[in-house]
């Protein structure tokens, strides 16, 4: 059971969190054709190595956070607030809306 450092709560068992998915830039729906939209919806980098992803501390502070995790070792080297909440990122950047397909074999 890996420990995931929550920016609010500190290191906690990963079972307290829900995996949301790879961080990917949500395109402006008004400027985006459906095929390009589907690339956003479905295509994943799925890297072997470091990846940046969104987690939700569902059994803790119920905050979303961004973590950098190595997909081979599951080592987490950094975690932070979502980009939109960072001081320098005051302009609204949608990076977390990719809840469409990730989450594996969950029953919908």
């Amino acid at each position, binding site marked *: *059971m890996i420990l995931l450092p929550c920016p609010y709560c500190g290191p906690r068992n*990963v*079972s307290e969190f*829900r*995996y949301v*998915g*790879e961080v990917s830039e949500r395109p402006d729906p008004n400027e985006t054709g*459906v*095929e390009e939209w*589907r*690339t956003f*919806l*479905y*295509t*994943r*980098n*799925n*890297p*072997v190595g470091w*990846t940046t*992803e969104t987690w939700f501390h569902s059994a803790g502070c119920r905050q979303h956070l961004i973590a950098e995790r190595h*997909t*081979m*070792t*599951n080592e987490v080297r950094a975690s932070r607030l979502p980009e939109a909440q960072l001081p320098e990122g005051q302009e609204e950047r949608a990076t977390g809306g990719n809840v*469409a*397909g*990730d*989450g*594996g*074999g*969950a*029953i*919908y």
Partner: protein
Amino acid sequence: MRAPGAIKSALGAVMSSVGPYDRNGSTNGHKPYRYSAFDLLRHGFSQADWPRAWRRHDPKSSYDVVVVGGGVHGLATAYYLAKNHGITNVAVLDKGYIGSGGSGRNTAIIRSNYLTPEGIRFYDRSVKLYETLSADLNYNAMFAQRGHLTLAHNDSSLRTMRWRAEVNKLEGVDSEVIGPDEIKKLVPFMDTSEDVRYPILGALYHPPGGIIRHDAVVWGYARGADALGVHIHQNTEVTGIDVTGGKVSGVRTKRGDIATPVVVNCTAGWSTLISDMVGVKMPVSTFPLQAAVTEPVRPFLNPVIVSGTLHVYVSQTDRGELVFGASVDPFTSYSMRGSLEFTEGLAGHVLELMPSLAKMRLLRQWSGLCDMTPDFSPIMGVTPVAGFFVDVGWGTYGFKAGPVSGETMAALIATGKMPDLIAPFSLDRFASGSLMGEKGAAAVGH
């Protein structure tokens, strides 16, 4: 006998390739050695060595087709290329030993009771191929059609079971919804009482479903492909794929470069890595899937049991062990170290179903990698790079599709025509919004 120059371009070449080949593909094969009871006796008396089931080779500088991934999909593709289409100048590459990936790590459940007509037809063909596989390959894969029960613990899953049963019947597949009494008859150990947390309301019963010896399927295909002339290269990791003018031209491996117009990505877990080598992006996320086995006890469980609500499936092998599986891990990873949470949850759910197993002991847990797609269906066929074929995205259902995938991928590569059975699984369905309806019933539908 391969006609030099017959391969002109990736797809074109493979499409027209049947001509120059000897239909039986025996040109660079060796005489297959038949296993039989008589032979077993003969060897028993003489104690002579058996011949190698498949041979070792140095990689050649070129092949007509290079299959990446020496699991059941890759080996079956090579086997049917040789057997059905006479294409024998084929190499199967694996970075480890054959069957070291999902083929050797799955829980070996075979069934065809899917939800969509497309899914049912496809898997039904696979079950049919599995039924005759031992005889076809002269290698006993020990397919045991003990029946398959998918339990329903609430109204909505019971409704989904009935939906599957009805579509199955229309497709000619034997499935029916049965009640708790019939379940109890099939599985006396099952707790079918009503006052439990997850009462069993019914089940989808699928008599042709069952389990098989997964390694034997891999070895049988390897032996069969080898006999027809296919080269199997173990410990031969692919490090790159050359693309020239939008077409595949070769494969780089840790044992040297190989020229080829056709590369088939038959990997699981690593399919993104291989596809990335030609720049083809995939709607794939890789999740570990864990499984576990208990110590053997005397046989008491005949059918395969699945509960989607409890995320668990159980079968008892002929050796007496219980084999357990669950849904994929809660987050993506290529780590195969396994977790304690998995065994804790699994044991709890098994005991919900069969409380009298509390003193059975878990012997071993392991993990495999599953390439999940957004609609719980595979990705098969061509890609924007000519000569680069994919047979990936197999999620948790790849093993049961091994034979039919090999057969259809071989047909696609050899004839250039998309077999009807796999047309719905093309990569472009995501861009065109034609996702497969299996999403509705995916759950843990093993």
